[in-house]
């Protein structure tokens, strides 16, 4: 049980695909002008990731090693096409905003990366939890970037006006440079926290060694 929980939590924070591993960087930069489009994009990717990871894990003993990448891509592309059509039917407005980036989930290296590194070597159950953790980590990252860019760039959050009348929209946050600034600053902050923690762990370890040394 602990293993499955670990798989999920790992994707959310410690190995967050967007903020820690920096893979699949195109959607976080391109479609996060608002929180909603970030959320939908994240969920669409999660759905594709779970489906493709499951199927690849099921079929892993049948896929010849030499042609595994094309096979993975075909499986991923199948699910992306399905998701694309489902989004177009359910949320046509958001689908229009996301545009080309939904079909482009096929080439999101997060999905192929998990297929190659995890699903093709692990049992089905763990592939699902890993895909779930990675997908949710991706989703919250996209939504978070979208929130910041929407709040500063348009003064709204999930479409609701948050900032007062006198707030001046930071137009740059709705433009591509805003995505890079936001992304960079978030990664910077997370690394700062990570380094601080690592240093504390190191300090604690050193203290323990000293204590042990004295006792010995």
């Amino acid at each position, binding site marked *: 049980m602990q293993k499955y929980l670990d798989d999920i939590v790992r994707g959310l924070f410690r190995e967050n695909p967007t903020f820690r591993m920096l893979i699949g960087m195109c959607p976080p930069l391109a479609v996060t002008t608002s929180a909603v489009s970030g959320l939908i994009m994240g969920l669409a990717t999660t759905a594709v990731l779970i489906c493709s990871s499951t199927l690849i894990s099921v079929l892993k003993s049948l896929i010849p090693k030499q042609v595994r990448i094309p096979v993975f891509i075909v499986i991923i592309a199948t699910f992306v096409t399905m998701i694309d059509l489902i989004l177009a039917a359910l949320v046509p407005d958001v689908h229009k905003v996301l545009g080309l980036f939904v079909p482009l989930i096929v080439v999101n290296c997060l999905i192929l990366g998990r297929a190659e590194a995890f699903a093709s070597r692990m049992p089905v159950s763990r592939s699902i939890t890993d895909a779930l953790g990675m997908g949710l980590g991706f989703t919250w990252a996209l939504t978070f970037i979208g929130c910041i860019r929407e709040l500063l760039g348009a003064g709204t959050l999930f479409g609701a006006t948050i900032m007062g009348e006198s707030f001046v929209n930071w137009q*740059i946050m709705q*433009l591509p*440079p805003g995505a890079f*600034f936001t992304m960079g600053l978030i990664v910077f902050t997370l690394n700062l926290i990570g380094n601080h923690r690592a240093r504390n762990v190191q300090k604690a370890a050193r203290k323990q060694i000293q204590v042990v040394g004295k006792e010995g």
Partner: protein
Amino acid sequence: MAVAKSKGEGIYQLTLISSPPPHIHAAISVDRIVHMTIASLLPGVIWLLYLFGWQALRVMVLAVGAAILTEMAVMKLRGKENTVYDGTAVVTGLILAFTLPPTAPSWIVVLGAVIAIALGKQVFGGTGCNPFNPAIVGRVFLGVAFPTQLNVWIGPHSSETIASPLELWVAGEALPDYGEILAGTAGSFMGEFAFVALLLGGLILILRGYVDWRVPVGLFGAVAVFMACLGQDPLWHLLTGGVVLGAFYLAGDPVTNPITPWGRLVFGIGVGLCFGIIRYYGQDPDALFFAILLMNGLVPLLNRFLRSRRRGAAA
């Protein structure tokens, strides 16, 4: 090879001087360059205070103050020795103020200075490590984020809004003549009003050898030739658009220049050409800043391909 010791977490850090050999030790220090740069900006400061009074003073004080405070705060956060006394933050703040109009809202000025120092300079490692001119990073951020708030120009000694020379030129209306531009009655951001004072300050920097003459000469030459080829009056385009501020203080910033003489000449010409293209075809009021930012990004490439030939090495 110069080795400087600094207190970097118990390990001595190597500080390498980035210029092609041979090296000679001179009595030039960062402090002295910075003090001279501030001194050379003073005629411009006085001239702008005379033209715009309190408005100009407000922008300058806010920009410099925010730059100093940001520098101190970030140095504290990074756990580094506080180097705010070398004055580079003052220069960045002051030059940022020169790139803004006197009407710029106070909070926008402060935000620009914070971004210039924090994101333009300190994230790259502080003084001397920034690939882009910090003041331009701040200015471009503001220019892209708040175009409607910033592109409001006022004339000297009044609060009446005027059209900038660029806007008059785009609209095909009567252009201000040389006399009006030199007298500071036509312009857009503050640096554009202070042609004579900035030219004076820039010449001081060149005579003292703190700015390589190749950068401004390449820049002025490229702008003049480009505009002349398009059938424009080259002198008018040199006098407007803040070209003089850009040539000496923004593009001339030694930190963000290529290290070889040829590289600097090409750098200056590149800035001039980009400026001409963006201003002529794009009619963008921020052309100068985008041009310099673009060429700053190409500096590593220029350093790589325009190396000085080694003496005695086979050709």
